[in-house]
């Protein structure tokens, strides 16, 4: 247990946040990135929820990995994820009702998030519980990071607010001819912003470019 924070484990934790980001490099979890990023608040809540669920699901599957029959492993993973999400949603309804109201549909979306299935299948099935936990948190945070950046631009330029606080909707700014861009609130703009993030990351890191 002396090497809980060994160089390899640090790498497992940190690469998904940047150089192997699940959204910008592996292009997973795009569907929910479109759905929840028109405002900052749901984006953050969704990012944190996915982080927690991915970490727990990774640990559970990692503990079960040697007993899971190969032919039904995807079903087993799905059952674990669905059960976890349902329990979290029930707990929220009982102890943090306001948060559960805010999350509403996003809880269900977590089950279908490709990042979860991707990490369970690619990492937790082959690694120990502690590494899997780090991997889950890392990937969740990597996903959250992209969500927050996208939501920041969409809410600011689309509604002129951040966290529902007015930033740009003042007469002095509007008299200069500025108008909120309603297109920013539509799903296609999320794709375009994510694409810009991918572009930026690949331009900055030459080793990510395909030959």
């Amino acid at each position, binding site marked *: 247990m002396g090497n809980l924070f060994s160089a390899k484990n640090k790498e497992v934790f940190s690469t998904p946040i940047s150089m192997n980001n699940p959204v910008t490099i592996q292009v997973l979890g795009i569907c929910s990135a479109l759905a929840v990023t028109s405002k900052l608040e749901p984006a953050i809540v969704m990012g944190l929820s996915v982080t927690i669920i991915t970490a727990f699901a990774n640990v559970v599957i990692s503990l079960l990995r040697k007993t899971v029959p190969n032919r039904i492993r995807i079903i*087993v993973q799905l059952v674990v994820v669905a059960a976890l999400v*349902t329990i979290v949603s029930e707990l929220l*309804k*009982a102890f943090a009702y306001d948060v559960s109201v805010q999350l509403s549909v996003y809880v269900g979306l977590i089950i279908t998030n490709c990042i979860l299935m991707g990490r369970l299948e690619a990492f937790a099935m082959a690694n120990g519980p502690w590494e899997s936990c780090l991997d889950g948190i890392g990937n969740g945070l990597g996903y959250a990071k992209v969500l927050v950046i996208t939501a920041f631009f969409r809410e600011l330029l*689309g509604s002129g607010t951040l966290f529902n606080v007015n930033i740009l909707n003042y007469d002095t700014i509007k008299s200069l001819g500025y108008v909120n861009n309603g297109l920013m*609130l539509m799903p296609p703009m999320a794709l375009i912003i994510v694409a810009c993030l991918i572009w930026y990351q690949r331009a900055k890191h030459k080793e990510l470019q395909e030959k």
Partner: protein
Amino acid sequence: MNTNSNAYTIIYASVMVVIVAFLLAFVNSGLRERQNKNIELDTKKQILSSLGVKDVTDADAAFAGVDAQDMIVNEDGTLAPYEGKFVTAYEKEAKENGRTHIFVCMVDGQTKYVIPVYGAGLWGAIWGYVALNSDKNTVYGTYFSHASETPGLGAEITATWFQTQFEGKHVMDGTTVALSVEKNGKVEKPEFQVDGISGGTITSKGVDAMLKACLANYTKFLTSNE
């Protein structure tokens, strides 16, 4: 052990499903009471919000503070007190039990009537509460919420600007419900109509249909002069 044999796979799947089913049933029944209480408190907060009482911490006390009486509207338009357990599913109450609820409240010495409304938006259910002045016609305040409308578009029905538009509007034009949501900028009768949400057309239409359908159940009460 051979984890790929048919017998192992079937037993594994069965055991897993049974364990998960018991776990979920246990969690659900253990938390049910707490959840129902939360839903009840939340419903009370929503009713209070339509009366302009916002940011309530103790919903039960605040609900008693406006002297809210849960009443049932009879077929002839008169009111009778409701004696049962506090209900939160008003659509089910109206359709299955034939009870149309109305809350009679006192705000600053004035009688207010709060009518629950429910309908469908673009992606899921929408609902709300319409508070009326003692003349049973002028809107005092509204509250709307939704299950899964698009943030920034249809979900704007929860925004203050949308809800305050209704204040002072009239509900009934003769014996029909005239209170309605029009396409943004197409309001012709400002006495009854409010602006919809640009980009949230289907949700706006949903609110419009919800108001017309639910308030129509109260026509007898709203047009009686008692």
